[in-house]
Structures are given as C-alpha cells and as structure tokens.
C-alpha cells in the first residue's frame, strides 16, 4: 500500500510540476527566453494567495489576485528586463544572470516581509481521509489533478484554435515570418509571458494549501521547470507537462528506497541522464551542441 500512497502523492507533486513546466516551456518555446525567474512568479503567486487568505479574503479572490500578480510579474520581466537586454542583442547568459538577480531580490524581500520558513494555508480540503486501508488522500489531490487537466486542455485548444495561440506557435517557429505578416512579435511575447506566468499561480496555490511554501522555493521550482522542459524536449508543451508529471512521480516513489533529502536529486539524475544520452528529450527535435 505504501507504493500506492507514494504514487498518489507523486501525482499531486507531478500536477504542480507539470503546470509550472508547461508555463516555462510555453515562454521558452515562443520567445526563446530562458526565463529562470519563472520560479519567482510561482513564489509571488503563492505568497499573494497566502496574504489574501490571512487577510480574510474569500478563496476565489485570493486565487484571482495570485494569478494577476504572477501575470504582472511575468509581463514586467518581459518589458523591463528581457526586452532592454535583447535590444542590445544580449546573449543567453546575460539574460540568465539578469533574471537570476531578480530572483534573488524577490526571495530576500519576501523573506524580510513574510519571515523565513514554511507557511501553509489550512483548509478542509487539505485534510486527508483514508480511502483504502493505509492510503490517505486529501481532496486537494483530485483538485490538483483536475486543475492540471483542465488547464492543459484549455491551453492546447487555445494554441490550436485561437488566432493568438496560432500566432504564438508561429512565433516559436519563425519570428521573421510573424513580422512579414504584420503581426506584432512584441505583443505575442507579452502574451506568452502572461499565459506562461499565469500557469504558475494554480500550482503555487495548490502548493501553499498542501505542503506549504517558503521564500526559497522558487529555486527548486525553476530547476524542476528547466529539467522538465529539457527532459520533455525543448519546444514541446506536452513533453514538458508529461516530464513534470514523471519527475513528480519519480521523486515520490524514490522515497521508498532513499531518504527525503535525496528526492530532489532524483530529478537531477534523470536530467543528467537525458543530457548525456538524449539531449533532445522525449519529444524534441535533435539538437545537440
């Protein structure tokens, strides 16, 4: 039964990873910006929800505020950090360092305001019930899975049916063509950041209602998003979501063999193996060096 319990826990972690990884992959795919501050959008959304909850707001209002905050952060990053750097044809690494700097600032500001250490929001939804002998599941698990599934279907529909979504995919493949057709690549890249960052908010809310979050969680989320994007294959949204889910499950099931502190390392062994043996990932086109 322990295996089933770990698998169910893994599904919940996996849903969180899949959502954040899909957001990261969407941004990276469309804009080619390696948005390492994606974990920061997650942290901001989580703490906005936490503060709203403590201030007595209803849950939906807190969630809306969290989504808006994450979107505002993503768009501000695009507008005030990435775009000025890219105007001077900044290298990948310049972008990486700038975004990392923002991550450090936000982490420490949150630490100063909210205090350091784990913070959680307790609701009836987070209480576990025994569904099978020795298997405990909280309603949050089903909410997490349903949220991930619904958002992923909505995102796929948007990218295949809606003109703006099709534009985003076109931007990913051929930015020059976008300009030729008179579409605004700037507008589309703002859209990519808005949607991608918004996807981090539900994941952050689920996290704060289950395991809790601390001010440094952004690092971990960023690493998982990068790992999932690479393992899934750069440019593939379903690859990123699938890999996020897999990493969550692998992390949780590994607990049967190793101690908790190694759970994170499991993701990195998977990532390492992929980088050495199959850098193109599960669904990616072959592209090494």
């Amino acid at each position: 039964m322990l295996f089933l319990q770990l698998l169910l826990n893994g599904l919940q972690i996996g849903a969180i990873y899949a959502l954040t990884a899909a957001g990261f992959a969407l941004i990276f795919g469309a804009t080619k910006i390696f948005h390492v501050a994606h974990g920061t959008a997650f942290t901001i959304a989580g703490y906005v929800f936490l503060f709203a909850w403590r201030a007595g707001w209803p849950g939906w209002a807190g969630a809306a505020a969290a989504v808006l905050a994450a979107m505002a952060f993503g768009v501000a990053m695009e507008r005030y950090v990435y775009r000025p750097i890219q105007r001077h044809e900044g290298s990948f690494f310049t972008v990486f360092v700038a975004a990392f700097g923002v991550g450090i600032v936000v982490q420490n500001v949150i630490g100063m305001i909210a205090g350091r250490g784990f913070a959680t929001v307790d609701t009836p939804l987070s209480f576990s019930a025994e569904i099978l002998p020795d298997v405990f599941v909280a309603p949050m698990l089903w909410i997490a899975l349903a949220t991930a599934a619904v958002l992923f279907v909505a995102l796929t529909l948007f990218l295949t049916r809606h003109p703006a979504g099709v534009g985003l995919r076109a931007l990913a493949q051929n930015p020059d063509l976008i300009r030729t057709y008179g579409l605004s690549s700037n507008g589309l890249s703002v859209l990519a950041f808005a949607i991608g960052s918004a996807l981090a908010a539900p994941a952050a809310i689920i996290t704060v209602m289950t395991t809790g979050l601390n001010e440094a969680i952004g690092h971990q989320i960023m690493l998982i998003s990068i790992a999932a994007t690479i393992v899934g294959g750069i440019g593939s949204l379903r690859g990123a979501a699938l890999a996020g889910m897999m990493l969550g499950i692998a992390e949780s099931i590994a607990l049967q063999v190793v101690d908790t502190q190694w759970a994170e390392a499991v993701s990195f062994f998977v990532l390492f193996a992929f980088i050495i043996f199959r850098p193109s990932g599960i669904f990616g086109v072959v592209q090494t060096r």
Partner: protein
Amino acid sequence: MTAFLLNLATLAAISGILASTLNFIVGYAGIFSVAHAVFFGLGAYAGAQVALLLVPDPFLACLAAAAIAGGLSLCLALPALRVRGEYFVAASLGLQMVAATLFAELKPLTGGIGGLVGIPRPEILGTVVPVLPLALAALALILFLTARLQRGAFGRTLQSIRDADSAAEALGKNVNAAKTLAVVFACAGAGVAGALYALHLSFINVESFTLDQSIQIMAMVIIGGTGTLWGPLVGAVMLLSLPAVLSFIPFIPPTEVGAVQQIIYGLAMTLLMIFRPAGLVGDQTKGRSTS
C-alpha cells in the same frame, strides 16, 4: 582592525582565485558553469581532511585539493562536451544541487551539516604561517597562467571554440580536448582556493558550497567583466567588501544585513546586465561573450 583587514584580504584573495578560474571557463571557453562552488567545496573538504588526518602542510593540502577537484571536474566536462547554452546551465545547476546534498549527507567525509571543525593551522617546516601570503601567491600564479594560456595557442583555440565551435572543429582544433583541459584547470584552481579557505577558517560546512555561493562567484565575474584578466578580481573585492560597508550603515537591523546584501547583489546583477553587460572592466565596444 588589522586582524579584520587581514581576514578580509585573505578572503578576497581566495575569492579572487575562484572568480579568475571561473572566468577562465566562462569568459574564454564559453562554458557557463553555475557549479563552481562544488569544486571549491571538494577542495576544501580534501584540504581539510589532509590537514586533519595527515599533516597541516599547506602545499600537500593544495595538491590533494587540486587533484580531487580537477579529477572530479570531469562530471562537468562531460555535459560540456555534449551540450551548450541552456542545456549546460541546466546540467551544472543539477550538479550543484546534487553535490550540495552529498556534502550535507556524507558525514564521514564532510562532517554532514555540522561540517569539519578544528582544522589545524597551516605549518611550513614546523612554523605556523598565515594563509594570506599563500593565497596571494596562488592567486598570482593563477593570473600568470591565465594570461599566458590566453595569449598562447591554447587560449586562441578556446576563444575560437567560444565564438564558433563548429568552425574551430572544422579548422582541425581538438575541441573536446581543449574544453576538458580548460574545465580541469579551472576546477583544480577552485580546489586550491577551497583548501586555502579551509586552512584559513579552520572550520568549513556545506553552507559555503551551495548554489548561492556559485552564484556569488558568478556575480563577481559578471560585475567585474567576463573575459578580462582584472575584472574578476575587481568584482571579488567589491562583493566581499559589501558586507563590511553595509555594517556601517546604521538603519539596517543586524538580522537583515544578510538579506540586504543579497538584495544588493541581485539588483547589481540585473541592472548591470541591462545597462552595462560587459561588466565594469570589460571593453564596452567589443562584442560580448556569445550564447
């Protein structure tokens, strides 16, 4: 006050070694490692164990540290040969996270979270010596080697790899060997810095070898100027004197000094990348290091 300044100077020299060696692979070979603190840590643990178990001879400690850090740097060279850019940064991030866990968990070798304590002071021929002259000598040696390598054929090979590695390969350069050699040299240097750090503080634990430390070394290189000889040193001295300067500002509560310091690093990194991406010393007109 003298003790305070001596301590600061020693730490600055050690950070200078770290920043210069990282700059060697970032600025010259275009390998963007965010795992430099791993090799700093390997060297520190190796040097500390030599001093604790054998003799507190600084040369032996440095040698062991360089050998272990240089040898294990193949963990970094391997992905560097396979992938570039984003992929490599992801791999080195992963290496950094796993190594920090290993440092915290391998208690017999690293003392776990508590770290290694009571590392004896370095002795040469039975006389206790301060670490500062040793660190300065190591720094000078590394700067000298960097300058020589950079001007020589090896340096030009590295720069051609940084700028266009398929072209370098087409010209018959052995790209894999050059990259591996650069990584081994830089990581062995970081190892020496680690051994000196352990001997200087006589206490080490995993806190000094985490991602934050790697990023701080990176910040030193970036703020000073990648691909320049003196830039990383300028960056190291600036970032190290920051806490001292901050402690003179009266309105920051002492408990928040660390956070304020981090916020300043973070802001400096972001603003520099936006407004002055070549760093303080770097040549602003020249194209910067490639992606």
